[in-house]
């Protein structure tokens, strides 16, 4: 059965750590860093459950700063 696999790439330097992508993701793929911060001092979003991402792009759609690029690949 065809299955959608996705991946997100976060521009971590542009990210302001608003957490809206984390909330929007239906599969808990993303989380904010707890320790690491970017050059502006924000905790930033990153993938924590890469395998589960389907590439639905909800995270990127709600991101106010356009930090997220989403890729999707159909697998058999």
């Amino acid at each position, binding site marked *: 059965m065809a299955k959608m696999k*996705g991946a997100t790439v976060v521009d971590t330097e542009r990210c302001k750590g608003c957490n809206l992508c984390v909330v929007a993701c239906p599969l808990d793929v993303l989380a904010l860093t707890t320790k690491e911060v970017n050059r*502006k001092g924000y905790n930033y979003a990153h993938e924590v459950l890469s395998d589960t991402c389907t590439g639905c792009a909800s995270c990127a759609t709600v991101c106010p700063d356009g930090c997220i690029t989403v890729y999707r690949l159909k697998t058999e």
Partner: protein
Amino acid sequence: MTREEIIEKGQVVYKKPTLLNDTPMHYCPGCSHGVVHKLVSEVIEEMGMTDKTIAISPVGCAVFAYKYIDVDWQEAAHGRAPALASATKRLWPDRLVFTYQGDGDLACIGTAETIHALNRAENITIIFINNAIYGMTGGQMAPTTLLGMKTATCPYGREVSLHGYPLKITEIAATLDGTCYVTRQAVHTVAAINRAKKAIRKAFEYSMQGKGSNLVEIVSTCNSGWKMSPEKANKWMEENMFEFYHLGDLKDTGAVK
């Protein structure tokens, strides 16, 4: 299948519109402005109007909108954007002309310019960000501040006896003969964002088809001014703002013809 393989072989399903440049936006984390900037950029790109757009920025949080969206911009005085847009569109009728304004700019100091530009049926679109507060100046009461809502200039909550009622300027706009499309949207969820994008596209198309003036209100959050996290601000907006500011189309005369 590794993440790297998906990135390498997969298709891009979402990326920041190229019209939205790489300059970091000054908006607070989670601010609705960013989402609307993306939508406006996407629509201009998709319509192929990059080289034919003239935008007018307000005074307020979006004063620097011109730094982020790569079209020609005019930075107006507080509230006057619709006057600039009226002249610009009349002088360059084949250009896409829109203003981008907040509630203080549009519904308070610029009420006259807004109402009259809309009622003259200027073939422009007004994007109206309503977060019920003056964000840039530090969270003061706006004409659209809800009753009971606390701001820096109504710290005990907005009271009718002191401050009068919140203004539903979009409802007023819908009664004007000059308006073609008047709608109220939000950008707090994926579904809402998709609807808002369609609304902006429709408004821009009507502007170019000469069908009259168009107002797209986006009920928005100001998590800094409201003193909430972006997530909580979205919830608060759903529970409080939408009750007073109903989402949906208020008027659409463009489609009937």
